[in-house]
């Protein structure tokens, strides 16, 4: 057989990318529909569409109960799940690109823990700070304080990790993982201290953080998280070429004209913002940032032009799927979402490792 020329190879890549993005988009729409339709009261997807279309035209569809369930209870939860899944998966893809390592996941290397620690700290101690502010600022701090605290926590963890693990532009995998474990443990210890200081009510709020959940989603949370996730999308997508080049090495990326320092700064700030916001709204949810980019790379190749948007779409779809499982498996009670993603993600990840070991012949 004649080996494929560059033209065919490139055309094949473009076709595969376009098809893959389309599949991811369809999966996301299906997951959103499932998230709106499935629950203690199951509503047919056609009915869900009717209610949504009517709401778009500014009127409430007949059958008020269904409209309430879809629009007031499940829609904010679905939108928040979409945002959180996008943030975690895209954040994972970006960090993996910057660290040049497929194991960099915000959950695995301590970034989510840093955010959770700061968020819990804000829950327990933040009211002291709010009390000290003038009334107008206090109201702002009351609503924006939590995501902002989580952002700062995520940013500090990411920057610390980067500074520790990277030397002369090369990131050591082992150092990165160990440093991530240390940062995670330190954040965990800090979180423990906060738990010790917390009141009963604060303690209940806190349980929510440690396992992750989309329970208690409101439109207010959706609006608070949305700008961070949009910011991440806007910051990430133009970095595709730079991240492809960084895969060759930081010096090589500089040689082909990439401003490496600027790329790293943008990526780290955007990831910290979006992961911080995701953790602030839904707690620590692991494995999405690890598994989703990995799946996309296996199916569609490593080029970031496709990897980044496909990860965002598939991340939203997978998180919504996991949430549907979380709230139907032991209905009417709910499993913590982080437990479900870990139950699905960890065996999947081990399977990948085994397959890779088999492929390498030992």
């Amino acid at each position, binding site marked *: 057989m004649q*080996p*494929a*020329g*560059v*033209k*065919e*190879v*490139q055309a*094949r*890549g473009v076709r595969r990318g376009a098809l893959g993005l389309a599949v991811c988009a369809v999966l996301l729409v299906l997951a959103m529909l499932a998230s709106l339709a499935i629950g203690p009261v199951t509503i047919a997807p056609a009915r869900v569409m009717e209610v949504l279309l009517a709401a778009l035209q500014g009127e409430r569809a007949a059958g008020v109960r269904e409209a309430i369930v879809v629009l007031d209870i499940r829609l904010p939860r679905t939108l928040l799940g979409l945002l959180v899944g996008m943030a975690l998966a895209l954040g994972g893809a970006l960090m993996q690109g910057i660290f*040049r*390592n*497929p194991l960099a996941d915000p959950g695995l290397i301590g970034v989510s823990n840093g955010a959770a620690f700061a968020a819990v700290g804000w829950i327990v101690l933040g009211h002291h700070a709010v009390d000290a502010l003038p009334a107008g600022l206090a109201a702002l701090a009351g609503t924006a304080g939590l995501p902002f605290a989580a952002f700062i926590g995520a940013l500090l963890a990411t920057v610390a990790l980067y500074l520790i693990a990277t030397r002369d532009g090369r990131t050591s995998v082992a150092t990165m993982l160990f440093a991530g474990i240390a940062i995670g443990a330190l954040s965990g210890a800090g979180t423990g201290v906060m738990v010790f200081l917390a009141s009963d009510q604060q303690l209940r709020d806190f349980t929510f953080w440690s396992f992750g959940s989309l329970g208690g989603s409101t439109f207010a949370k959706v609006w608070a998280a949305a700008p961070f996730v949009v910011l991440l999308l806007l910051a990430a997508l133009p970095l*595709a*070429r730079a991240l*492809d*080049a*960084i*895969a*060759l*090495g930081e*010096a*090589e990326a*500089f*040689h*082909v*004209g*990439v*401003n*490496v320092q600027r790329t790293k700064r943008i990526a780290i700030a955007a990831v910290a913002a979006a992961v911080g916001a995701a953790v602030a709204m839904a707690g620590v949810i692991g494995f999405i940032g690890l598994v989703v980019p990995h799946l996309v*790379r296996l199916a569609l*190749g*490593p*080029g970031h*032009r496709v990897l980044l948007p496909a990860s965002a779409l598939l991340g939203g779809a997978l998180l919504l799927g996991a949430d549907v499982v979380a709230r139907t498996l032991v209905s009417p009670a709910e499993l913590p979402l982080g437990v479900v993603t870990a139950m699905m993600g960890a065996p999947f990840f081990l399977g990948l490792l085994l397959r890779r070991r088999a492929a390498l012949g030992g």
Partner: protein
Amino acid sequence: MPHLLNSYRAENITLRAGGRLLLDGAGVTVAPGRVSVLIGPNGAGKSTLLKVLSGELRPSGGQVRLGEEAVSRLGPALLARRRAVLPQSVEVAFPFTVAEVVAIGRPAGRGGHEAVSRALGRVEMAERAGEAYQRLSGGEKQRVQLARTLVQLEAGAERGGGPGYLLLDEPTASLDLAQQMLVLRLMRTLAAEGVGVLAVLHDLNLAVLAADEIVALEAGRVVARGTPHEVMTDARIGALYKVPARIGWAPEALPFLLPHGLVGDGAKR
């Protein structure tokens, strides 16, 4: 010709790192249409000087100029339009195909299948476009990276960067004899097309084959520069590498080197 305005040059470079003086007033000039080769013992500062020239390392003293501009003033994008760099070895973090790796040399990062094909053809890797870069041998990877620099030079020329400059750090290190000749031939062809070429080479006989000018570095200083005939003398090479050496003459009146014996422990046979 150290002061050509139309050239790419490092002048009087000093570089300190970790308390060591890596470069001590070294300089090199790459002129359009010519091949310059850096030689010298390990640790003499050849790769360091190449990194300073490329803009990757900031020197502690001295300056690097591309034409009339200071390299430190040109941003990465403008610099990339006018010079390409082949590092010693490049490992790619994710399973990119050969064609994708080569296309990274283009400013848009993709497309340009004609340019990519042409470049892969020039390094005799055209049939391998769809393969995973990570699975190639060291020599194949080196040639794919060379193709990436060719694509970059061509894209730079299209965007008004002129024929440009190519810096190569030991481009023949992991290649067999045929491939070494391929790379040297390519260096000469590029020079004939107007590209200024600078290569670090360890093999002095290859240096002689390729070079218009040889620059010898020792302990961060330039100790000799000139045509191969001028630099390749028994005394110079012996002093440079601390090895007794005798220069012979190949059929085409090119000097070649045969080490004249081993020195140190265990040298007697």
